[in-house]
């Protein structure tokens, strides 16, 4: 895709395949190709650099969130982290906790996964590593832990509360009911909370990611995506489809298993990596 050559049907197919292989999905890929067709007449000579630039601009625009997101002004600032099993919630919380601790904030982590083997032990290690406190209870009801944690955070004037939840499939009705209960309990203690609900999406996820985002949003409004495991070879393009269809932007990306492996999402560098 270099030099000045005619833009052929074959080339458009190759571009479509690149988009599909990034998990952007058939519908959105077709829409992007349609945009390309409207702006670059078929079989006419064109500088490929302009085609690539056009594509990059189209895609990064789709992933840009509107400015003016005032955040962090509430105290405590409550972040609820949700997502399908194994997508990286607990690890991402460790990274977020460290990010806030470094900025001088007093952070409390809430062990809201009261089900999975060693879930609390895992979060406890992240709380040690990040310098955040940990609220855990012997309770089996996550709402009970959340309730106590938020009461305590309010009383003690903590800055940030990050709530870990158990992995769940959106197809598990009882677990989605549990999630609904968690967010209602949050509101009972702090009516304006959660101030940020983050959905973890594994970068290797295919088209099911869109269904996940849609279903989770129906139970608790999702503000942002945390796109994890982008250090692999998967492009995480389903995040583009999620933003396009549900207006939920990516805010953070996970680039590894260590505490520093988190970055604020930048659409331009993300799209650049897409075409490499």
């Amino acid at each position: 895709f270099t030099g000045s050559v005619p833009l052929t049907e074959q080339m458009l197919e190759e571009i479509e395949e690149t988009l599909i292989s990034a998990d952007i999905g058939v519908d959105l890929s077709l829409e992007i190709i349609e945009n390309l067709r409207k702006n670059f007449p078929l079989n006419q000579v064109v500088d490929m650099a302009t085609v690539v630039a056009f594509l990059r601009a189209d895609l990064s625009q789709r992933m840009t969130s509107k400015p003016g997101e005032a955040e962090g002004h509430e105290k405590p600032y409550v972040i609820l982290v949700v997502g399908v099993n194994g997508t990286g919630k607990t690890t991402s919380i460790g990274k977020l906790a460290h990010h806030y601790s470094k900025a001088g904030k007093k952070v409390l982590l809430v062990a809201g996964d009261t089900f999975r083997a060693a879930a609390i032990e895992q979060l406890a290690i992240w709380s040690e590593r990040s310098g955040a406190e940990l609220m855990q209870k012997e309770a089996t009801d996550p709402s009970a832990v959340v309730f106590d944690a938020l009461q305590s955070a309010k009383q003690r004037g903590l800055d940030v509360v990050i709530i870990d939840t158990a992995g769940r499939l959106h197809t598990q009705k009882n677990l989605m009911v549990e999630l609904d209960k968690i967010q209602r309990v949050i509101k009972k203690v702090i009516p304006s909370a959660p101030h940020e609900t983050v959905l973890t999406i594994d970068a290797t996820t295919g088209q099911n990611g869109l269904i996940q985002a849609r279903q989770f949003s129906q139970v608790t409004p999702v503000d942002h995506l945390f796109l994890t495991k982008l250090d692999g070879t998967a492009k995480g393009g389903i995040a583009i489809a999620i933003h396009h269809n549900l207006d939920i932007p990516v805010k953070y990306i996970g680039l590894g298993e260590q505490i520093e492996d988190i970055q604020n999402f930048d659409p331009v560098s993300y799209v650049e990596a897409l075409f490499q």
Partner: protein
Amino acid sequence: QLSQNLEHVFKRLRGHGKLSEDNISEAMREVRRALLEADVNYKVVRTFINSVKEQALGSEVLRSITPGQQIVGIIHKELIDLLGGSTAELELSGNPAIILLVGLQGSGKTTTSAKLARSLRKQGRQPLLVACDVYRPAAITQLQVLGKQLDIPVYAEEGNRDVVQIAQAAIRESARYAANVVIVDTAGRLHIDADMMDEVKNLQKALKPAETLFVADAMTGQDAVNAAGTFAEAVTLSGVVLTKMDGDARGGAALSVREVTGTPIKYIGVGEHLDKLEIFHPDRMAGRILG
């Protein structure tokens, strides 16, 4: 909504008398779309569609009085064949028989290790679980908790970072646990992490497992071929386990993984509880992928 589309396509195909090349091309486009939306890798889709199209345009179909029906049959059969044709069992030779589980981060290896242990004990075997994830916070604890839930022993060496050493010690000690099958859980790793891929290579070389299972998440998208392909090159895979099949992911990754590794999918995980492990059925999977 998509499954309606394919039903529509198949209905139109069956309802037709004679089929033109255009009819067939149109149908193939819709099947292609369905497979892509089901997360089958686009290269695998291309090969699949070409093969089906070739058969569809063949004289046998064109001579038939129900060519549409023939094509639908071809699509189903082709898909089932590509998924392995029939169920496949674990081949547990050796005493103790050794099973090694590998895969990307979060795919369900630790949970699957425990599920396998439970299932094998139900079949009259004596399992020993080995904690060879020495990196993830509380990974050893996780496996120990699961072992305790099942009353199945777990071999672990806190503080030892040499997984080959740990696994070999477990095998040596297996008699002490009266174990005749040793199930080795490993850390999640990226196929592009050279050091970690060396680790699994070394594990396989040292342990010579009867089964080396690639544990993959059913919701994996196009990248499935990259990870599976690289793992298959690094170690000899004897089987695949597809987890989280209790979700509604169509599971096209199954086709991609099978196609690129040539390895049979032996089991599926259908829930978080330790009894949620089932034998993989290619015909059921074909239906699910086609929606």
